[in-house]
């Protein structure tokens, strides 16, 4: 399925702003942004995005916990999820993938190449940690 709509969740407004700008203006995607996993979970069945991008380190509910919640929602359980995270160890990346994510994008990211990385992960091309 062609990637059109993306749900983006990050508690850091600066990152959310630049990521949304990159995904919409550079990537041409439709993006709905959230600073809270809780609100994103409330809306996910209504929006049914093609892809969900989750920041890993968020207060109250981190990326893996949010993904686990998504997997319990019947209508949303098959929506692919990508994590965004700062530099981490390789074994942590393996844990993230084992939790059900299709890929991991490292922060910081270049806004001009970020959308292409997202598209490649969505399409299953190349490495799962970009």
């Amino acid at each position, binding site marked *: 399925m062609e990637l059109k709509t993306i749900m983006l969740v990050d508690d*850091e407004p600066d990152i959310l702003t630049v990521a949304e700008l990159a995904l919409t*203006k550079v990537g041409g995607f439709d993006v709905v942004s959230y600073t809270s996993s809780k609100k994103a979970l409330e809306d996910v069945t209504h929006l049914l995005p093609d892809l969900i991008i989750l920041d890993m*380190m968020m207060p109250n509910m981190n990326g893996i916990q949010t993904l686990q919640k998504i997997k319990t929602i019947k209508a949303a359980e098959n929506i692919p999820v990508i994590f965004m995270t*700062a530099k981490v160890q390789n074994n942590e990346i393996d844990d993230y993938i084992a939790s059900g994510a299709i890929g991991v994008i490292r*922060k*910081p*990211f*270049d*806004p*001009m190449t970020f959308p292409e990385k997202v598209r490649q992960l969505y399409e299953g091309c190349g490495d799962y940690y970009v």
Partner: protein
Amino acid sequence: MSDTDNIQQKIDDLTNVLLEKLPGQLAEIRRLFEVLREETSPHEDTIENMYIIAHKYAGSAGSFGLDEIGQCFHDLEQSLNNYSGTFPIDMNDDHPRQIMKLIDTTDKAISERLHNI
């Protein structure tokens, strides 16, 4: 102006907004560091709060092209994450001195970038 130029201009504007926030955020890290020198305080919470700020700006500064500042915050984040010294901190110990030095280095990187706007 092309679409790419337009997008880059917006990113540059957002970068300047972020850059202007950084001295205040680093000042908060410095304030929390001083709290760690006090006899009685919730030290683990304090160092965790310093770590959260450093982690946040390690990710965001780099994504706005502020690579050197992002690296400084990342180094600070790593040092705070690995802290295994005693509380209250003793400035004769290596690790607290390293943290102080990293705060100063980050401060210098921010100041230099602000002067170049």
